[in-house]
């Protein structure tokens, strides 16, 4: 059971990444162009739908399948960039804090606490209001939410690893601090970070959807899965396909990511199990 679901999840994720990378080249329709006269066409199996638009069209007559595929690319890009930024900043601060210790550590951890208590969505709205919604703004805002988790985790790991014998040995043999962090501490932190990063993919996608709902998500005409769900929310009864298909896509990817994340956790660091919300 566990094994099958793991392989199914891995398969799904590979499909997700492949779709994001090459999918747009395989679809004939332009995800950004549509015909108003063909708007709100249902999927082909519903009366009124056609093979031309397999999954129907959206409010501007754009092909849902093409947008779904393009949305995979944009959602993946948001995930990768956000997790990259939040991960590296958070890890850098956390590792440094744990390694150096003392008042620096205390100060940095206070800041992390503060960051956790920021009403981030309000900041997001403000930032969105300053320069309008853009890819960069979304990345900044979501990174603001997520970096502190990496900082917490890597600090803890750094504290633990710092006191291991081999690090002490490396230190006595005159290895520089930078080298110790890079050679000994980071490789030890990496597995836990990978797990956290995996589990956060879902968080990022759903958060982006909420920002789209509040009008500061990925700007049109580019589709992200989240903005597609937000776009179709008023039509859940009459044109359900607009929000349902991207909704299902989000659901599947988040599930897959969590299954893989759990499996990785069990393999890499069982002590971590469930400790990442």
């Amino acid at each position, binding site marked *: 059971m566990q094994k099958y679901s793991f392989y199914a999840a891995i398969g799904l994720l590979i499909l997700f990444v492949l779709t994001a990378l090459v999918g747009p080249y395989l679809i004939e329709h332009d995800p950004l162009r549509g015909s108003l006269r063909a708007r709100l066409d249902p999927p082909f199996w519903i009366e009124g739908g056609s093979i031309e638009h397999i999954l129907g069209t959206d409010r501007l007559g754009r092909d849902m399948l093409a947008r779904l595929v393009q949305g995979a690319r944009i959602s993946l890009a948001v995930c990768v960039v956000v997790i990259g930024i939040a991960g590296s900043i958070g890890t850098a601060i956390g590792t440094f804090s744990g390694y150096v210790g003392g008042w620096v550590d205390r100060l940095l951890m206070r800041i992390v606490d503060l960051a956790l208590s*920021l*009403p*981030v*969505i309000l900041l997001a709205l403000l930032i969105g209001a300053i320069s309008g919604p853009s890819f960069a703004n979304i990345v900044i805002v979501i990174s603001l939410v997520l970096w502190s988790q990496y900082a917490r985790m890597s600090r803890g790991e750094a504290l633990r690893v710092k006191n291991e014998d081999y690090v002490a040995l490396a230190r006595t043999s005159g290895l520089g601090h930078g080298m110790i962090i890079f050679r000994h501490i980071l490789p030890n932190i990496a597995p836990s970070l990978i797990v956290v990063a995996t589990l956060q993919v879902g968080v990022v996608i*759903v958060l982006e959807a909420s920002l789209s709902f509040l009008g500061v998500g990925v700007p049109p005409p580019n589709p992200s899965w989240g903005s597609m*769900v937000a776009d179709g929310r008023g039509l859940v009864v009459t044109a359900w396909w607009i929000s349902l298909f991207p909704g299902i896509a989000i659901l599947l990817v988040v599930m897959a990511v969590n299954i893989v994340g759990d499996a990785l956790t069990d393999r890499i660091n069982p002590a971590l199990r469930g400790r990442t919300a």
Partner: protein
Amino acid sequence: MLRQITGRLIEAFAALLLMSLVIFLLSRVTGDPVALLLSDSATEADRQMLIEQLHLDQPMWRQYLSFVGNALQGDFGQSVNAGRQDALDLVMSRLPASISLAAVALAFTLVVGIAMGVVAAVTRGSWIDVLVRVIALLGQSVPSFWLGIVLIYIVSVKWGLLPTSGYGTWQHYILPALTLGTFTLAAVTRLVRASMLDALGSEYVKLARVKGVSEATVIFKHALSNSLIPVVTFMGAFFATMITGAVVVETVFAWPGIGRLAYESIVSRDFPVIQTVVLVITAMFILANFAVDMLYLAIDPRMRDAG
């Protein structure tokens, strides 16, 4: 103990000060309310007049200092809205709706999440375990505004069981709390399941069984009491998620809370209200974290001695 409390107070104050500065600067660069309050045919003279009325003609640093100075005396200024309501009063009048909703949602999340986590851990590996984890994950992967709207359509429009939206009776709480709580449900379930598994495999649970106490006592007293410690640790974070989620959920369910007040005040550039809302929310976080620490002391005897 006294030193700890003073330290905490100083920290809390510093946090609030920092937050006020961040919000002050952020909100000033996003445009001013003047343009919004002027009519379409207003002239430059009209604008200057309004700027003066709102004291927006002073240099920024002076505006900030006078804001902080007044805030220290409990005066957070007045809404730029024509009603000129006291900003703090305005926020406080919306606070009960938000806090009660967050509390109900948190209670729902904790009760259901803990129950699901325990069930999943006890039946580990079985189909029940799988089912519970899938349900929890569903909650985490559905955007809350969408879940809310779908719930409204099914429960309220189709079945006619509950009111669609609004604030008032206990029935009004159910759908928004469900929507708000669902996102954290997965986190709680995961957390409880994992720490329950740890606890169930522990020596003290073995000893309890060896003693011959009933399985219910083993699970609910010995294992669960330990599993709750990590849940308590994360309560602050859960609460933060709730408040963040409130902006969305309060909009969908027409809930008159501070989440929507914050959103509206940002949209209308109502500086004093923005500042007050954010500061009140920050203060609430600090309080919540303090409460979590207290709870921690109560639940984990090891912490009492460590402190």
